[in-house]
């Protein structure tokens, strides 16, 4: 296992993997997810590189991806607050097999659990940004007149959703760069990841059309 090789490396305190206890504590203090996912990217990257407690980490990222997108979803589409969460996670689930299988065939050194957790970082960050953008969307809906207009709150909402997705993509690469071990692991599949991201974004676009968000 690659994890075993990297286990022996000296690690600075800020790049020690997240422990199961720390991850479970986040259930009681969900606002600290931002600190773990955005600010503590070195520790997050270390957890991914060493495959340490990936199950609770994956569960946390998945849960955040769905839950954090609810307010924005409720504002964007009153009838289905779950749609934005489904858009993020659904697109990922549709595209994940291609990332894993292509990766395996092309000699990627990331295992399925690592790839899944890594790709969930994207959806998790996108969902967190939708949560931060929710007050803005609410404000726009409250101050802009409903009805025909060259620019509608919904259009800006879709734009904000796109910005949230781009923030997710940006952070995914930041996490990849944050840990030397993870960088070495992912180096073999960087091109694949770039291509896969294009597929993911296209599928997300189609999924948004399918869900009636566009």
């Amino acid at each position, binding site marked *: 296992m690659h994890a075993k090789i990297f286990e022996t490396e000296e690690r600075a305190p800020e790049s020690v993997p997240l422990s199961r206890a720390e991850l479970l504590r986040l259930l009681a203090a969900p606002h600290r997810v*931002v600190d773990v996912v955005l600010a503590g990217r070195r520790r997050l990257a270390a957890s991914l590189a060493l495959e340490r407690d990936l199950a609770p980490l994956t569960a946390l990222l998945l849960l955040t991806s769905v839950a954090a997108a609810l307010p924005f979803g409720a504002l964007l589409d009153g009838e289905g607050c779950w749609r934005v969460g489904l858009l993020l996670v659904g697109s990922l689930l549709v595209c994940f097999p291609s990332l894993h299988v292509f990766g395996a065939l092309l000699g990627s050194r990331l295992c399925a659990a690592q790839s899944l957790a890594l790709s969930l970082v994207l959806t998790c960050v996108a969902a967190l940004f939708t949560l931060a953008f929710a007050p803005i969307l609410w*404000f*726009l809906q409250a101050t802009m007149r409903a009805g025909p207009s060259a620019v509608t709150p919904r259009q800006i909402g879709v734009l904000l959703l796109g910005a949230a997705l781009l923030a997710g993509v940006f952070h995914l690469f930041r996490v990849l760069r944050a840990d030397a071990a993870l960088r070495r692991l992912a180096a073999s599949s960087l091109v694949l990841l770039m291509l896969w991201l294009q597929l993911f974004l296209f599928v997300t676009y189609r999924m948004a059309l399918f869900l009636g968000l566009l």
Partner: protein
Amino acid sequence: MPRLAVTAAICAALYGLAIGMVHSPLFAARNMVKLPLLLLATAAICGPAYYLLARLLGARAGAGALLRLVLRMFHDTALLLAALAPASLFLALTLRRPDGIGLGDYPLFLGLNVAFVAAAGTLALARQARGLLREQRLGLRRGLLVVASWLAVTLLVGGQWAWYLRPFFGVSRQDTPFCLGSAADYRGATNFYEAVYHLLRPPPLPAGFLRRGWR
């Protein structure tokens, strides 16, 4: 933080009073409420986005410290505007008023105040950006990215909020409501973004508009 917010509100109210006087004491009084509302509500609505953007771009401080920085930015803007309030008030009281024939010195007053707001905003942003680079140990590129993203979010919300709260001054009638909200402007725009869009691609003016005039 409450002290920063209160000072910002008072300073913004002073500037609001000054620019409102170009129209009437009624507009001046209304602006004393509108300007603080514009600044503080923009800061509050954008707060979560500011925080996440700063975190995404590598800032290390917690939500409290970052929001204090944002509030200081709005506080500085309001303080600088308040410093310009006497000049603005003097101009408001002495300019050639719009009449039935022309707009008098009103375009000059409008242009000067746009320049005042731009100068105050840019200076406050530059000052806080320096603080951001120093306190958060961000690189220059990252720091500029944080500032640019904050500026974009502020424009997104502040632009629409200012549109909703309009008029702050101008040549409108005395019985104009407190805020025009989403009422259409003379080109038919019902929100800030549509108004910007109309600036880029102007639609035809409504029939009889030129004959009817501004009112």
